[in-house]
């Protein structure tokens, strides 16, 4: 492990509710690192704080205290447009409900982060073609999101997340709305991206099968990391079993 961490989280706290009112602490001091070659899973029951954590990492939310550094940038130092640009350039995000704009074609959806940066059509086209080829969606680029299946939608969303060469890819239950075959395809594709292009992936999920594609899993309980397991040299099947065992003891 000589790689520098791409994501570095230090003692993250998040409290909801104003001071003086009834407060709720969603994150109670979370720290971890993710290096460039890692595929990390975050598991936990609903309300454990995993979505809050992901939103903070993706600059969609701000922590109450603690520090997040992504690709050598401290998130707290970013202001206004820098936050938007950071999202467009450094972070790829795949959501459970796809978040595709249904009034744009798939091509336009994928090209969106590039056109937000005012990258010319000439330069954007090969980039879109590259991710489309990688995700095997070249034939549906001119269709609209409502005209394709859920699995295809998620591939388009993944292509959009990857098109601007992000420093890290976040997935918020990306397989949640997919059938098992589509889910398997997507996860294999994500593993390949992670392995071939050295894009680290942080996957929030409560599905043990999805999690079995990861190399390392952080279990969050009541706003804290309660346990961490690594796949190491285990087969995927063995790791899946290990996850189930951990979840079983995890109350």
């Amino acid at each position: 492990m000589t790689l520098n961490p791409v994501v570095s989280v230090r003692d993250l706290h998040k409290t909801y509710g104003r001071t003086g009112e009834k407060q709720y602490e969603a994150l109670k001091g979370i720290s971890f690192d993710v290096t460039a070659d890692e595929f990390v899973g975050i598991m936990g029951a609903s309300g454990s704080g995993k979505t809050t954590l992901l939103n903070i990492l993706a600059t969609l939310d701000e922590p109450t205290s603690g520090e997040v550094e992504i690709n050598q940038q401290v998130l707290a130092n970013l202001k206004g447009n820098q936050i938007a640009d950071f999202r467009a350039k450094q972070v790829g995000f795949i959501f459970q409900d796809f978040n595709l704009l249904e009034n744009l074609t798939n091509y336009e959806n994928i090209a969106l982060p590039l056109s937000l940066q005012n990258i010319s059509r000439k330069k954007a086209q090969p980039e879109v073609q590259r991710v489309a080829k990688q995700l095997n969606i070249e034939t549906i680029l001119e269709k609209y999101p409502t005209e394709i299946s859920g699995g295809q939608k998620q591939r388009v969303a993944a292509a959009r997340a990857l098109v601007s060469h992000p420093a890290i890819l976040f997935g918020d239950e990306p397989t949640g709305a997919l059938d098992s075959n589509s889910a398997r395809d997507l996860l294999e594709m994500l593993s390949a991206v992670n392995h071939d292009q050295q894009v680290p992936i942080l996957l929030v999920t409560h599905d043990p099968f999805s999690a079995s594609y990861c190399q390392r899993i952080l279990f969050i309980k009541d706003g804290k990391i309660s346990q961490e397991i690594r796949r190491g040299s285990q087969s995927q099947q063995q790791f899946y079993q290990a996850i189930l065992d951990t979840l079983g003891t995890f109350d």
Partner: protein
Amino acid sequence: MLNRLEFAGIKSRLKDYIVLFFGLIMSSAIFYMFESLATNKAFIKANARQITGAGFIFLFGAILLTIITLVYVFYANSFLMSMRRHDYGLFMMLGAKQSKIGQLILVETMVIGTIASVIGTLVGWGLTATVGPFLMSRMIGTKLQHFNAFYLPAVLITIALYLVLFLIAGVINRFALTKTSVMQLLKGDSQPNRTVLKPISQLAQVGIGIALLTLGYYAMSHIQKFALSAIPIGLVTIVLGTYFLFNAIFVWLILLLKRSGWSNRGLNAFTLSQLSFRIHNYTKILSVVSILIALSLGAITVGIGMQRQVTALSTASSPYTMAIKNPSRKTSQLIDQLALDTKVTYQQKETNKVIYYRADQLKKQPVQFTGFKPLLDSNRRNRLASPKYRSLTSTQLKQHPEKLMVLQPNAPQKTFRLVSRTVFNKVPGQSQRLTLFRVKNLQAEKTRLKRIVASMGSPAVETIPGTYGTFVLGTVLFGGLEFMGFFLGIAFLAMLASCLMFKILSGAASDKRRYEMLNKVGARQSQLRGSIAREILVLFALPAIVGIVHVLFGLQMFKVLMLNPYYQIWLPFTIFFVLYMIYYIITVRLYDHIVLPKLTIDK
């Protein structure tokens, strides 16, 4: 329990409801203002002499205003429903009975309608009491008789109309919502429109559109030939023509822009898609709005034009503003305070049959005349010719003595004689002074001129020779028309802009999600704002452009009534533009407020 939920729903969207209320209140206030004039029989009767055809114009205006109000309430209502759809869907999912939901919708619509129309009537009363007399005194110069800000029949008509409209709206809402599936209510309509180019059908539409518009414009510019039927012909053909043109050209334009490089910058592709996503939804309202713009702009233009016409006509009617016999010292002082073009005083002596003038005085300061030149400038057709003043030589004066005699107060039937100074002195009788003057700008000097008339002991203005008498009479005659035109124009404008505003805002709720997604993907706030501003600008600008074209052609109709309907057309256009811009800015602000995500999203 449901009632409490319902109330909580309203509370959480209080700002949007305030917008809705504000719009409805303004609409009913304007309606009341108009009705308080239009239905006040005593007022119309008393002013019938002043306002030509007042009864008919008011009736026509009231009908138009009712139609617009109908359209307006419909759009305001769709805005209300767009806010509530999701809540109702949720209630139904939780197991609320359809009849209960229907009841809730009806009650909510009626409560809002009642509150808005009652407050609106009160506001309208206040506005009529304050703005009404102000407008009238500015335009007519005098107070109109029997003008009451509070007029009970108008109150009743306003409230009754709004209640009926809201009852209809409530029933329609109830019917529409209870027929929609819960899923649709919850998910909203997220089906995209695939903009497909159908060249043949679109070319045909362009052809039909242009043909209809040409027919309409032709009918309006040849109103003498078609008489009154020109108006319905024009309205029908132009409405349809506009619709076809919008439908065909707009889709085309968007596709063209989409294929160009421009669409790849920033959020342009998104903005274009938003527009094409909407356009089928919007062609109808855009055509209607463009017609309304034409009507309101036309009303303002004609109203203001009438007033201008009075100035132009009266300026050309005589070379002098006033002719005063033996002005008192006070009157002379007042005359000297005016911004004068020319002023001359002649001595004259009057016997039973003859008026004598001194030839040397008339030679030194000749009398001027305007002659019957065409009122329109032959070289520059779009401007009124400024009258040319020429001096009369003694020979010309002898041939046309009426040029001078017409300036005699009370126009006596006497002979006119030019004599030498010595002869003049021998003529028996008192030497009189006849003062003639012309001001530079009749309109600008009207208050001072009024004071001069007062200093003369307030004779009837008709008896004072010169342009001023014509001006005052014309102002009274046309001032009513101007008032009507201006009032109707502003009322139409307010309503149509609000219609457009509500139509756009109705789509905002379903757009919210899209802007949230864009935010997550990394669009800057400035990019989001820019995209919204551009999108709404297109929706505002298109009907405005088409409407202006309609007005420019439509004014042809008024050639029969007016010297030059296009004279100084920039003024009404500027007034219109400023008001329209205000609506645009308000709409963008409200839209921003509804759809733009806060910088951080609490989940």
